[in-house]
């Protein structure tokens, strides 16, 4: 979820430059402005130690914010059970969870969510929608508490990369649906370690900018996971632009 202050545009252009380097956060600034701001910033950084130090400090602050968001909630497991602990982590990040036989629980635009899930000690979580959340490798500790997860959506997560994908194998017994659409740091090397997820029935790998050859990657992933329907790039996409497939599973949220 993009930080709330981004939409306010009250912050100086320096934020854009710092974020633009490491692509933390999701707001888009028009290309021309971005370039001009970047060269001015570059010039200042190369000539003034203060500017360089300030930029370094701001970058460190961004990174420590992400770390804070991904701190471990496993201590909640003893008191409330693994499902509630995992749900708390996801809801705090801004994602949505669905317990078995219950409705989707989502935080509203202020980040508040209903505390009813604290009572669901024994009810496993079926589906998690962590789109646009800032989950990273350490945060997956909390996600892996949910042993009976069936559907996971990590669309457009800015910090999910190949290392994170190699951590998903504990969910192999239950995971049936996985969506990685739009993740900027996932490449074909991370997709290679999805072969552990033998129960996967639906995998969405569309719009991955870091994958070097989307068509070939899709073919190789389809070979790797023979029982899975891989939704991604139509490998004849050079010839025509087809519409992306609509999701058939009504339990999962509508893909943006």
């Amino acid at each position: 979820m993009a930080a709330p202050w981004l939409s306010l545009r009250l912050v100086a252009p320096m934020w854009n430059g710092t974020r633009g380097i490491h692509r933390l956060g999701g707001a888009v600034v028009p290309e021309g402005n971005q370039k001009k701001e970047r060269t001015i910033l570059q010039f200042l950084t190369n000539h003034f130690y203060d500017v360089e130090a300030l930029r370094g400090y701001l970058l460190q602050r961004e990174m420590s914010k992400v770390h804070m968001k991904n701190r471990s909630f496993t201590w909640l497991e003893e008191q409330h059970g693994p499902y509630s602990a995992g749900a708390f982590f996801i809801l705090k990040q801004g994602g949505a969870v669905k317990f078995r036989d219950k409705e989707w629980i989502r935080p509203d635009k202020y980040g508040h969510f209903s505390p009813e899930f604290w009572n669901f000690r024994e009810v496993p979580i079926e589906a998690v929608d962590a789109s646009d959340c800032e989950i990273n490798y350490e945060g997956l500790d909390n996600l892996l508490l949910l042993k009976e997860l069936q559907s996971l959506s990590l669309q457009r997560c800015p910090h999910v990369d190949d290392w994170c994908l190699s951590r998903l194998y504990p969910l192999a017994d239950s995971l049936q649906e996985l969506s990685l659409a739009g993740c900027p740091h996932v490449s074909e090397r991370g997709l290679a370690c999805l072969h552990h997820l033998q129960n996967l029935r639906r995998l969405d790998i569309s719009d991955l900018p870091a994958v070097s050859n989307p068509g070939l990657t899709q073919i190789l992933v389809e070979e790797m996971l023979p029982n899975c329907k891989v939704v991604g790039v139509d490998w004849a996409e050079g010839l025509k632009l087809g519409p992306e497939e609509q999701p058939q599973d009504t339990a999962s949220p509508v893909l943006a």
Partner: protein
Amino acid sequence: VAHAGRTVGRLGEGDWDGKVSEIKKKIKSILPGTSCDLLPDTSHLPPEHSDVVIVGGGVLGLSVAYWLKKLESRRGGIRVLVVEQDYTYSQASTGLSVGGICQQFSLPENIQLSLFSASFLRNINEYLAVTSAPPLDLRFNPSGYLLLASEKDAAAMESNVKVQKQEGAKVCLMSPDQLRNKFPWINTEGVALASYGMENEGWFDPWCLLQGLRQKVESMGVFFCQGEVTRFVSSSQRMLTTDDEMVILKRIHEVHVKMDHSLEYQPVECAIVINAAGAWSAQIAALAGIGKGPPGTLQGTKLPVEPRKRYVYVWHCPQGPGLETPLVADTSGAYFRREGLGSNYLGGRSPTEEEEPDPANLEVDHDFFQEKVWPHLALRVPAFETLKVQTAWAGYYDYNTFDQNGVVGPHPLVVNMYFATGFSGHGLQQAPGVGRAVAEMILEGSFQTIDLSPFLFNRFYLGEKTQENNIM
């Protein structure tokens, strides 16, 4: 006329123009903006003083430089100079390496080093962040390592995996049936057990790590110099041990760095020298006088690191193993892994002692592939019976002939020379951990995070081997 040194000359008006032009020339040469011949230009030479001189600019040397600057208690407190004899890194082991990282070792220290390196590489954009430089893309393939063991090695593999799990590595054992299930392209004949690394194992681009370290370390203020270390000037001191034996302790005061293609050299006054010269570490150690003495004594113990040539071959196999292929290490010692999306594979095999190639140059022996590598690969993976070799290269292992594990820490007699070398093929994957250990040793006096006391130099004299069983 106030200019001393000018001859009085002829008094009189005949020489007035000459005098004026002389004065003009002198004034011009002293005014700023013109080249002044009073001081010679030494911009290509290293500085005259440096607290730490690191001999060798590969991944280990740069890692030590990085951690020294990162762990120093005051910014700018330590002056570090890295001396590298070849900026193109044409023979350096780092660039020619296969780039694998795995935690499947038998020694707990090796496992811990590898785990730390994995977390370093995972967070590389936090460790090596330079403002206004793009983030590093290590191209890490998290596909893991698959080690195969025959009947006689199965028990050792089981106990190794137990140690690895204890240290926190995510490794699992697989029986031949499970292997066939998971990787249908394997022929499990002769395989009794296999160990498969699930996380934090794989391979990456070593150049990217080297470039990332280089640019970060330059931004932290480390000096670089391209040159060759030709001499150490040291002073000796006689001391008595507690048993009243005399030992001669040496201290290196100056390092003579000779420039490329010239006889010019610069004596660099230093406090600490770090030997991270990889395959050439033994020569540097010999320059410092290590090993000059009667054999069997501490003075006579040489650094047992020598260059060993290893070949890596790249081939194309159209029906080969798929995207999920880990780096497979066969019972015979042959190994291979995928390279890219296009059915290319690369691999090789460590030769036995009798087959060791001559390390004088980096020429590739293609017959070695035909006779010693291909048969084992084709046996293990039947699809490899049809393949076509695309290219091959050779690189050096800084091979520790004593026990194939690294040498880390100070020398007992040459008190200010520290070693970070001899890793026999797993230097790249342990570089971040070793760099931190050496920096801690220098700055704090002892190993703080990972205890690498089994890797000290003393073991060569005492004869205690810290043997690593799982090298490739």
